[in-house]
């Protein structure tokens, strides 16, 4: 193929008729990669076919029922068995005894443990399905819990406004309290300063008074001449004597 022909080759091939007829669907699909049929398949039966005596399908008995009734298949079986035995088509030899033994062991085993084994197999399947169901239920439950929690969160959001109001009131109260405290502090400070001024004034006046009294006393004491001192002392003595007389009289 030359290079200019290659790009046009797919288009040319597509215009050709398909290599197989439309009805041959099964051979044209790749092996084991896609479904066999795109239509929905009928479901498989859950149990096997009914069997009588573990060997003969129930359909055989139903097949013979219209012509020979209920005992028909049994007559057929007995007749066949007796024919084989009497004509020595089946020879009774040591294998027959061995066959009787092994078949009785098998039948005993099946009858005794059959239901237990079936229950065990059912339990295996049940556990498998239950595990998957448990996963699904867990997921559903967790999602439901998530939904309820989300609803609760939404309810909480609705109540948020009350919360904010209360908080706002709280903050306002705190601010008010703080303001009042600070007001009190200011008042106390101012009072302290004013008290100081008052105390200063009082102290000054007191000091002036004291000083004046002291000065007055000092000047009076200084002004007392010795002559006056003698006179006052003599007067005091005379007073005392007069008083002592009257005191004596009182006693």
């Amino acid at each position, binding site marked *: 193929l030359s290079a200019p022909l290659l790009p046009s080759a797919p288009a040319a091939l597509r215009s050709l008729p398909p290599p197989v007829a439309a009805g041959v669907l099964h051979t044209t699909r790749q092996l084991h990669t896609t479904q066999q049929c795109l239509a929905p398949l009928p479901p498989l039966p859950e149990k096997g076919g009914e069997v009588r005596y573990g060997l003969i399908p129930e359909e055989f008995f139903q097949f013979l029922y219209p012509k020979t009734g209920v005992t028909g298949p049994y007559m057929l079986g007995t007749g066949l068995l007796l024919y084989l035995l009497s004509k020595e088509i089946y020879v009774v030899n040591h*294998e027959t005894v061995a066959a009787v033994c092994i078949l009785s062991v098998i039948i005993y085993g099946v009858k005794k443990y059959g239901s237990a084994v079936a229950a065990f197999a059912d339990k295996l399947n049940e556990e498998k*399905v239950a595990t998957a169901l448990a996963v699904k239920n867990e997921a559903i439950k967790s999602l439901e819990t998530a939904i309820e929690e989300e609803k609760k969160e939404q309810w909480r959001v609705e109540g948020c406004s009350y919360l904010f109001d209360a908080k706002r009131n709280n903050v306002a109260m705190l601010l008010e309290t703080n303001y009042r405290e600070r007001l009190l502090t200011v008042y106390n400070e101012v009072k302290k300063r004013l008290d100081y001024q008052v105390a200063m004034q009082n102290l000054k006046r007191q000091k002036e008074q004291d000083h004046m009294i002291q000065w007055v006393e000092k000047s009076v004491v200084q002004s007392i001449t010795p002559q006056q001192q003698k006179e006052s002392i003599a007067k005091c003595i005379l007073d005392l004597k007069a008083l002592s007389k009257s005191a004596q009289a009182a006693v």
Partner: protein
Amino acid sequence: MNLSFFDQFMSPCFMGIPLTLLSMLLPTLLIPAPNNRWVSNRLSAIQLWFLNTTTKQLMSPLNKKAHKWALILTSLMMMLLAINLLGLLPYTFTPTTQLSMNMALAFPLWLATLLTGLRNQPSISLGHLLPEGTPTLLIPALILIETTSLLIRPLALGVRLTANLTAGHLLIQLISTATMALLPIMPVVSALTATILFLLTILEIAVAMIQAYVFVLLLSLYLQENI
């Protein structure tokens, strides 16, 4: 038809067509393949559980590299189980009673384990020829003995399976012949012999399952030494 005691051990042949291959392949067809349903029927569920349990138990003492042998060992065990158990039915041919088949199974698998060991870890493989703690004087003799025991392993594997199954089948036939022969003469002794036959049948069922398991277990043991 009059059977001799050895007719059951002859390769089956029908009108000139040898049926040996069919007798070896057909028992495994009775084991259903897992289908692509998630929840399958009872037989598939039990079979899957059984295969999982036995494979896990068989492969647990082996290291990671040896797990490549899981498929061949498990399928070998299932085939031997099927063949042995089906051989207990009357008028059946058991391929594992033939030494040729058992040697054809044992020899290549044993040789594979031996060559794997010699190729990947030759000194460890050869080291297995001398057990630990042997006195120095005994070393040459012990090496010879261990080599002999190593080389006799495939023979032992094959012959063990053959001998067990052949002996069991032969015993069943002999005792059932005795039962049949005593039946017109001394029915009570015949009944006693029939009881023995019942017990023997139960034993043979157990032997069939145990021999299959032992074959595969010994192979896994040889693999454990060498891989």
